[in-house]
């Protein structure tokens, strides 16, 4: 009986290790090349945008005025469902237009 149990455990252990052998990866942290420029509103922008994406999504975009950035922030809220209130949205638009504007 003990021998049978031992063999079952061995089979179970082999099966488990086979499953664990499937693919697992870990990702590096957000790259510092995309760090946001310092200035009023940077903390709010960082806090509200980075739960869903790294800041390179911001810094790589063509420079644009308040109209462009208002469009982007509105899209993030209305289309992508970002939970950002009106007050924070305005802070973010002002920050982006000032530091990533033309």
């Amino acid at each position: 009986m003990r021998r049978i149990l031992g063999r079952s455990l061995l089979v179970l252990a082999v099966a488990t290790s086979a499953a664990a052998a499937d693919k697992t990866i870990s990702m590096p942290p957000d790259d510092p090349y995309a760090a946001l420029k310092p200035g009023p509103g940077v903390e709010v922008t960082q806090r509200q945008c980075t739960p869903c994406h790294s800041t390179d999504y911001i810094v790589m975009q063509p420079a644009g005025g308040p109209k462009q950035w208002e469009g982007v922030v509105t899209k993030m809220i209305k289309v992508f469902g970002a939970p950002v209130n009106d007050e924070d949205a305005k802070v973010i638009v002002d920050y982006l237009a000032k530091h990533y504007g033309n």
Partner: protein
Amino acid sequence: MSNLRRRDAIKHLVSLGTLLGGGGLLGARTPALAQGDPLLGARPLVRYPEKTDLILLTSRPPQLETPMKYFDRAITPNEAFFVRYHVFPIPLEVDLATWRLRVGGRVDRPLELSLDDLKTKFPRATVTAVNQCSGNSRGRFAPRVLGGQWGDGAMGNAEWVGARLKDILTAAGVRQGALQATFDGLDKPAFPSVPDFVKSLDITRIMDDPDILVAYQMNGAPLPMLNGYPARLIVPGWYATYWVKHLSDIEVIDHVFEKFWMKPGYRIPANACGCVAPGTAPAQTVPINRMTARSFIATPSSGARVAAGRPLTLKGIAFDGGYGVREVHLSTDDGATWQRATLGADLGRYSFREWTWTWTPRQPGAARVMVRAFNAIGESQGREPLWNPAGYLRNVIEHADFQVS
């Protein structure tokens, strides 16, 4: 090194120093000094799991670009193949004991297929095909457009092995009245308010095309995680947006699927060129579909110094949306005259076609070499790029610039 390039190099070294001084993480990360490209020059080279050094577009969700030097050959190595995700978080772990491809909706026999089922219950099919992001080269658009500012490396070519999608749907038994199938993968957004990445294809398109696969093998190996392990959809000739990674759910439906990533996402102007006057909006749109014809000079890299009077072999690739490349032409006189390149092996109509061309530069100074391709139905590239507001379908005569000395 020219003054301009030296200045750029110093600038990069300075910014690298700033990062190090600021306590930035370096790890397997190096600045992309060799790029010599205003769009890519500022971006670092990074190393992600199962990948070699690729150009970073975004960290999270990850978007990584293949350096141009890998396009001197028809097959793109798995470790150099570009990466593009839409939503965060992305799958970091797959357990084949529990992973299943589910097929449901308007079918007679809903299926739950393991990877072994895919490999053993369906005939094994092979296709060599280009996977290119809809927005490849978006960063080159003028006027510029919002979106991922890719250079030209959001493309790759691989030999894919898998089960035919039509065989899988036939096994499930598509019911009368079915119009489309939708495709969903393991990547799920952090918030339920964020649209999940789901794509659709017409049932007629699937049943007419034996080259649409659920692929579990890429260049003779399992797919890298970041390219869709354990299985992804392969839609040869069409843009990568349809090639759903980590495929987990297929649903057959009786209507046209119009959730975010099909509408308003990934749409092109509803006209023959898929283009509009720069800066304007299209009146009507359709889902993006077949790829335009393109060709690139991979080596020597643009910006390289080459010797006058000495024969030089240029290498690159050309491809199109599935008719097959017939000719590749090069010009050193701004397009006044063109000469034919020698084409490499034909790996099928969906594949990159390798080309080589020997050129002996004569005049010292700046020299521009232009490249264009023609496919089997005469599609090519124009002198001026076509424009659309989403930055899709890039299609223009490409070039590389050399310093002859």
